[in-house]
C-alpha cells in the first residue's frame, strides 16, 4: 500500500528556517552533531541531566506528489511521512458519517542495520519486519486518530504513509509526530497536533538510583529496564497513546510519564515553530506575488 515517492528537489530557504534542525532536551553533542549544511541548529542546553541528548530535525513539504508531507529525525531515527486524500473509500468497512484513516508504516529495507537487524541469513527477517510494520501502523492509528476532525470528511479516507528510513529505536514516537506534521501540512482540519516522546528507565546499576534517558537509542534501550512511549495532544494535554515496554515499578511510572510529557511539550514547541515559520514564509511569498 505504501508508496515510495520519487525524490524531488525541494526549494528551501537556507539559513532562514530556524526550526529545520534543532536540539532539544538534554543534549549530547557527541554522537549527533549537526553538520554545517544543516544550518539553524539550536542548542538548548537544559536540565541538570547529563544523560544522552536528543537531536531533533523537522521539515515539511518534502514529498512532491503528496497533499502533505513531513520528515522528522530524532537521533538516529528518520521518518518520512506523506498524506494523500481525503479520497473515496475503497473498503465498505470504511463507510460512515466520519472519515477513515488508512495508516501504513513501512520500514525501508535498510532501516535496521548492524546488530539491530539481527542475523541477515535468518528466514524470519521478512516476517519480523512485517510484524513490526503492522505494530507501528496500529500504534500510528491509535496515536493520531483523536487529533483529526474526522467528522469533516464523511465517507472518505485519508491515506497516511510513513516510511522509516532508519530505525534507531525511536520509531514508535517519531512516526506519529511526523504524521501529525504531514497532516497539518496538507491542510486537513485537525483538533490538535500530536507530539510523541520516549523515555527509557535504566535501573541496571542496581543501586536503587534510576536514571532516565530521553529518546534512547536501540543500544540504550537494550540497557533499559523499560521504555515508555507517550503520544500527547498538547492543547488539551490529552494522552492519545501510552505504551510501556518492559517492566517499571509503580513508583517510577509517574516520574517517567512526567519526563515523557516534558519531551512531548518540547517537541510540540519545535513542531509549532516550524509550521509557523513555514506559514509565514508562504504568506510572505503570497504577498510578493500580489505586488
Amino acid at each position: 500500500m505504501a508508496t515510495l515517492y520519487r525524490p524531488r528537489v525541494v526549494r528551501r530557504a537556507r539559513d532562514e528556517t530556524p526550526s529545520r534542525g534543532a536540539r532539544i532536551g538534554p543534549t549530547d553533542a557527541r554522537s549527533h552533531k549537526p553538520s554545517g549544511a544543516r544550518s539553524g541548529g539550536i542548542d538548548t542546553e537544559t536540565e541538570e541531566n547529563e544523560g544522552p541528548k536528543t537531536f531533533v530535525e523537522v521539515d515539511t513539504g518534502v514529498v512532491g506528489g503528496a497533499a502533505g508531507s513531513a520528515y522528522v529525525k530524532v537521533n538516529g531515527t528518520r521518518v518520512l511521512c506523506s498524506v494523500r486524500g481525503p479520497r473515496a473509500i475503497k473498503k465498505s468497512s470504511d463507510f460512515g458519517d466520519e472519515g477513515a484513516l488508512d495508516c501504513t508504516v513501512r520500514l525501508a529495507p535498510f532501516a535496521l542495520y548492524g546488530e539491530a537487524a539481527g542475523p541477515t541469513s535468518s528466514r524470519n527477517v521478512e516476517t519480523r519486519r512485517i510484524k513490526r510494520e503492522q505494530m507501528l501502523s496500529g500504534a500510528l492509528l491509535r496515536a493520531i486518530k483523536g487529533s483529526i476532525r474526522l467528522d469533516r470528511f464523511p465517507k472518505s479516507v485519508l491515506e497516511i504513509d510513513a516510511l522509516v528510513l532508519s530505525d534507531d529505536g525511536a520509531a514508535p514516537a517519531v512516526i506519529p509526530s511526523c504524521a501529525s506534521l504531514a497532516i497539518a501540512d496538507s491542510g486537513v482540519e485537525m483538533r490538535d497536533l500530536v507530539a510523541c516522546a520516549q523515555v527509557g528507565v535504566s535501573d541496571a546499576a542496581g543501586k536503587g538510583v534510576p536514571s532516565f534517558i530521553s529518546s534512547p537509542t536501540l543500544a540504550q534501550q537494550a540497557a533499559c529496564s523499560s521504555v515508555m512511549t507517550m503520544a500527547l495532544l498538547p492543547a488539551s494535554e490529552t494522552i492519545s497513546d501510552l505504551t510501556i515496554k518492559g517492566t517499571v515499578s509503580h513508583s517510577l511510572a509517574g516520574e517517567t510519564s512526567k519526563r515523557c510529557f516534558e519531551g512531548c511539550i518540547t517537541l510540540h514547541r519545535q513542531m509549532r515553530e516550524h509550521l509557523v515559520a513555514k506559514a509565514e514564509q508562504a504568506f510572505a511569498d503570497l504577498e510578493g506575488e500580489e505586488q
Partner: protein
Amino acid sequence: MSATVARVGDVVVPGSLLCVAAQTEVAKAEAGAGAYVDGRGAVLASVVGKLVVSEPKGEPARKIFSVQTASRKPKVVPVVGSTVTCNVTKVTPRFALLDIVCVGVESVPGSGFRGMVRKENVRSFEIDRVEMHNSFRPGDVVRAKVVSLGTARSYELSTADKDLGVIAAMGEANEPLIPISFEEMKCPVTGVIEKRKVAKQDSFATLDK
C-alpha cells in the same frame, strides 16, 4: 501547551487557542472556517494559517474566529447538500453513474468520488415518465446535488431542480451541443435535436429554434 491566546494576524497551528470562552454574557464567539469549539467552550484553530476575526454586520457582540490558510486549497469532500459537478460514465434504464470532479468550486482530482442519479431523482415532476437515456448520456457534464451519502460505492445525487442537470454535452457529431430548452439540446452543425435533462441557463441560446 502554553495557554496564550492568539491575536489577530498571528500564524496559528492546529490546537492553538483563539478565544478562551466562546459564550460569555457580553460576547458570542463562534468558530468559522479552520476553527472549532472544544468541549470546554474555547475556540481553537484546526489548520495552519492566520487568525482572522470578523463581526457580522449589526451584531457587534458576535465574533467569528476563522483561520485563513496561506496557499493550499481547502480540503473538500462531498457532504449532504453540496453541489457537485460530474462526468456521466454509465447510463442504464434505472440510473446513471457519474464521476464527481468538483465539489462546489473546488476540483477534487484523483479522489475517485462516484455518484449515482436514480431515475426518480432526475426531475421533480412526472418522475414516473422519466427516461434515463433521454436525460443523460455518457460523457455529459452534469451539475447535481448530494442528497445522501448513498452506499459505500457511490453518493446519491439528484438533479431535481431547474438549476441542476446537464451543463455541457457533446452530440452524435462530436460537436458541443447548444441548450435550447429544459429538455432539449441542439447540434450547431447538423441541427439534430437531442434530449437531455438540461440545467437552467442564463438564456437558452436559440429558444425560438
